[in-house]
Every structure is written in C-alpha cells, then in structure tokens.
C-alpha cells in the first residue's frame, strides 16, 4: 500500500529533476507544509484573539494539544503499520475510570493506577494485535469490538458514579496553573515533549523502529528479511492501548473528572491529528513529530473557530475539509494500471 509520492521520492526520475520536483520531494519528506500551516494558524490566532498572548492561555492550549497528541501517539504507530485503532475511546475510558474512581475515589496509590491501566489497555491491545496478525483479519472490526467491550465493562463497573476526581498529584501534572521545577509550564507538556523525543529516537535510530516501518510497508517482505512481524503487530497495538489509557488518565485529571462520552472525541480528533500531520497508512513518511504538529494545528484552529463565535459543528466541517485537502496534497495512492 505504498503511496505513489513516497515511491517517487525514493527513486527520482532523472529527466524530471527540476526545481519543482526537488521542492516536492522535500515537502514530502519533511513536514515543512505543516510547520508553515502552524505558523499561519498561530499568527491568525494572535490577530483574531489578541488576549490569548499570555502564559495562562498559552499553556492551556498547549495542554489540550498535548493530551490530543498523547491520545493519538499509539494511533500514529498503528497507522504506520497500515491499520486503524477504533478502540481508543475504550482505552481512554479505562484510564479515566482508573484515575478518577480507583486512584481518586478508592485512594489507590498512583503508581498502581498507572500499572493497572497499562496492564489492562496494553493487554487488550496486545491480544488484538496478535489475533489480527495471526488470523490475517483487518484490525478495524477487532478494535471496534474491543472498544465496545472495554467501554461497556468499565461503565458497568462505574455504575453511574462519576462524582470522584483524580488525586491531587495527577491533577497537578495536568493542571493549567502547575509548574515544573520552577518553570511556569505544566508537567504534562514536558512529559509529552520527552515522549516525542524518545519515540523519535526509537523510530529513527533503533532496529525496532526500522522493523516497524518495514512491516508497515510490506509484511511479507519484512517477514522474509527475518523481522518478527507477529511481535511488531502485538507490540504496536499494545503500545497503542497503553498510551491511550495513560492519555485517558491525564484527560480525566485535566478536566477533574469524567463522563460517559469522554473518549469519543479523542478517536476522531486523534485520527484527524495523525492525518493532518501527514502520516499515511503503511508508509515511511509517518512519525509522531508530525502528529504533534497536526494536534497543534487542530487545537489552534478550533480555538480560532470557537473565538469567532462559531460552534463545534463548524469546527467539525473545517476538520473534514482540512483532512481531505492535506491528504489529497500528498497521500494519494497509485492508479490500478501502475500496480500490476
């Protein structure tokens, strides 16, 4: 499922090596377009809402973008693998339940809460990844089913009790007014930034990262080069679950509580962040850096939309248009006649 542009980027045709094709290659390989769009969005935001240029509002925006990035982190890896994880709302709800009801309401220690979330969501994800790869089924339905199982099971355990909030320590990590080592930045922003750097190192500088890209581009070829593709699938889906679960814990901490529908927006907005960032299904052009850029762009845009008096409905429409335009710019697939 390699997209045509990436193939063109790998083997440039000598006769068309003009300025245009070199620019095109550069734009395809580096997220220059996204950086430009982000700059435009920031300038536009400063012009339309001048009041936003203070530390409090800026860090609030950054927290929202960080939470969205964290929820979309695992989805990025799954999309690089050529799949789609529809169980994100389920993982987010499990995370929110553990942090608010167990750590907050029942007073469980925070490290135990983290371990439980990682075990439950990671385990569910690992099962999906393993089964999908072994049985050669599309992850779409499996993740949809797992999402329903996790959501239904967690809400049953919750039994309508949404009164408790996460403990102070977790709320301090994701609160707008918190500081990190004296810096006026909430810790969650730093956590996501460090995670982004670590993930970049893993994807670009380790054999594990190369195995992931290889498996995403062509499972059979990867297997023939002795990549353990079963392990790649299992681990990637496990990571997707664990990361979305942790994101759920922080999401509940940021809003000091949770509700039944807390996970739903993070599925589609997270996917939008991945796609706007420029990660395409099963390609070498995917990375978490791109997803962070996508999340920043979307957060900025929805702030502009809301501050211009438009509603959530219009922001959905704009999300849709942006996804279509961005992906049409470079996420196109090959024509059938070129695929013989």
């Amino acid at each position, binding site marked *: 499922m390699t997209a045509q542009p990436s193939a063109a980027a790998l083997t440039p045709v000598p006769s068309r090596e003009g300025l245009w094709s070199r620019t095109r290659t550069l734009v395809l390989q580096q997220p220059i377009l996204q950086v430009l769009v982000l700059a435009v969005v920031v300038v536009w935001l400063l012009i339309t809402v001048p009041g936003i240029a203070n530390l409090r509002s800026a860090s609030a925006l950054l927290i929202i973008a960080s939470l969205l990035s964290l929820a979309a982190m695992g989805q990025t890896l799954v999309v690089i693998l050529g799949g789609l994880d529809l169980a994100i709302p389920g993982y987010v709800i499990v995370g929110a339940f553990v942090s608010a009801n167990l750590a907050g309401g029942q007073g469980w220690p925070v490290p135990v809460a983290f371990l439980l979330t990682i075990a439950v969501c990671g385990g569910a994800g690992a099962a999906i990844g393993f089964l999908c790869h072994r049985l050669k089924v599309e992850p779409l339905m*499996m993740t*949809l089913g797992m999402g329903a*199982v996790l*959501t239904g099971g967690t809400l049953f355990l919750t039994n309508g009790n949404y009164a408790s909030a996460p403990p102070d320590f977790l709320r301090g990590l994701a609160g707008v007014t918190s500081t990190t080592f004296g810096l006026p930045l909430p810790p969650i922003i730093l956590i996501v930034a460090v995670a982004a750097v670590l993930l970049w190192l893993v994807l670009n500088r380790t054999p594990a990262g190369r195995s992931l890209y290889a498996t995403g581009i062509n499972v059979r070829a990867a297997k023939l080069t002795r990549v353990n593709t079963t392990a790649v699938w299992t681990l990637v889906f496990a990571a997707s679950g664990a990361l979305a679960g942790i994101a759920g814990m922080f999401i509940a901490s940021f809003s000091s509580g949770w509700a039944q529908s807390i996970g739903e927006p993070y599925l589609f907005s997270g996917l939008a962040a991945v796609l706007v960032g420029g990660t395409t299904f099963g390609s070498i052009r995917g990375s978490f850096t791109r997803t962070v850029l996508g999340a920043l762009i979307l957060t900025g845009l929805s702030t502009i939309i809301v501050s211009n008096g438009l509603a959530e*409905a219009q922001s959905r*429409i704009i999300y849709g248009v942006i996804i279509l335009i961005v992906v049409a710019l470079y996420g196109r697939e090959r024509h*059938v006649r070129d695929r013989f």
Partner: protein
Amino acid sequence: MNRVLGMFQRWPFGFAMLLCAILLIINLVVSPSFASPARLGSTLATLAPFVLVGFASTPAILSGGIDISVGPLATLINCVFVAVLIPAGLGDWPLAIPLLLALAMAVGAINGVLVAIVRLHPVVATTGVLFLLIGASLTIAKSPIVAPDNWTRPLAGSIGVIPGAVITLGAAALVWFLLKRTVFVRNLLATGESDSSAYGSGVNVTAMRVLAYTLGGLFAGIAGIALSALLQASGSSLATTYALLGLAAAVLGGTSLGGGRGGLLGTFFGALAIYLLQQLLTSAGVQPNLIEFTYGLLLIVGVVLGATLLSPRISRRTA
C-alpha cells in the same frame, strides 16, 4: 461436522443466519409476545434504519474499500428532511423523496470520486466526509426538532396490513435485486477481489468504485427516511453510533473486509443478529452497559470464527 463447516464456507452468511435462528428462539422463550403480529410493525420499524445503514456500507466494502460515513449520511438526510424540507414546505413525498435520495446519492458519489479519482485511502476520504456530515447535521439541527405529522409516519407503522418498514427495506432490496440482473454486481465483486485483475480484464475499475459509493449513498438515503419515520424528529446525535453499527452488521454477515465476498442478504442477517441480541438482553433486564460489552464480545468472536473455522482459504490450505 465437516459438511456443516463446508456449508458455512460456501454461504458466508450461514453463520449469521444460524445465530439469528438461535437468538430468535431464545427471544421467543424469554418473551413469547415477541413475534406477535401486533408488535411486528414496530419491531420491523426499529430494525429498518439499522439494516439499511448496514446495506449502505456493503457496496463500498464489496468494492474493496470501506465507507464509514454512511451512518452520519443517514442522520444528515433525517435532519435535512425534518429541519429544512418540512419548514420550507417541500415536505410532501413526491418532492421530498427525490430530493433526499438525490442528495444522499450526491454525497455518496463525492465519496466515490475522492476514493477512485482523487485516490485517497478509503478510510481517510470517508473520515473527512464523516466530519463534514456530522458538522452539517449539527449545524442544521443541533438539538432534536420534532417533526409535524407527515407522510413518513406510516412507514414506521403499517400501510393497510403491510408493515411500513417492509417498503423501505423492500425498496433497497429491489434495487439490489435488479442490479444483480446486470453485469454491475459481478464487475463490482471482481473489482473488490482483485482490482488489478479486474482492470486487466477490461472492467472500468474507477467507474465501478464511484458507482459502489453512490449506491451506498442511495441506501443511506433510504435509511435516513426510515430513521425519520421511526423518530419523527431530527436525531443528529445518532451519527457515530450508526456509523460503526452498520460496519459491524456487514462484517458479521460474512462480507469480507478485503472485498469481493458477501452481499446484502448477509448484511441483513448480520444486522438482525445484533438487533435480536440487543432485544434479548434488554428484555432479560441486563444493564445497557453490559449489552455494549456483550455486543463487542460477539463482534470479536464473530470475526475470529469467520477467520478460522468458516474461512474457505484456511480449509483449502489444510486440505
């Protein structure tokens, strides 16, 4: 045992059909009034939008793609009818039906063009359109608007002795039946099975894909009308629920996500099985959250069974 398995493999919807039969019997045991003629009309009316959304997602899957925007399209049609056409005085059926179906087919065709001509990944293209449609529905009718008395009401009750839902379901089935007489369905399945082979044998793959999504749009339009009949109001909040349930129905009914295998009959039984399960759990007094849990479990088990016991590919390999 092997013969039973062989039968399931030849008819992909056999598993869903068996599931339906079992669930129907349990339903009748739990609440004997379930199949009484008095309740049949309303039962079918509740079932119809769900089955139709499943129908709507089927052609796209058969063509080797996927369409996640059919559920939101059905709710958009519902919102357009209740919140735009009726207040504008265009709510009479000779005018409203062509308008609504044309709108639905146009949206379907846009999906098809994005997938086949702009050549976006089907998930990406239909996710983009899904956002557009949800946004449009919320813009038209954010909170539910109650519809005045209109022609759709009998479609959720009965017209004479015929349950109204038979008409909406029948219309979609008739379209599919007529298309099956043409070369369209065969070319569609060929495209889904292997697009490069179909292209090599002279099938216009691009046109097939656009038409598949347009047909899905038509079914989603009928689903929107059936939904209006059932709700008699606008229900923009149902969009994402229907988006995923329709896919689940199609896959449970034996339509392969790889494309090229399956059909509307399977989707019907898939949707019926999910509906019967919900009915059973509801009448047994199970909590709604546990129903979602069971439904997810059923989906996983169904997919796993479909890929192991019931897959002709595996049996061929072991034989």
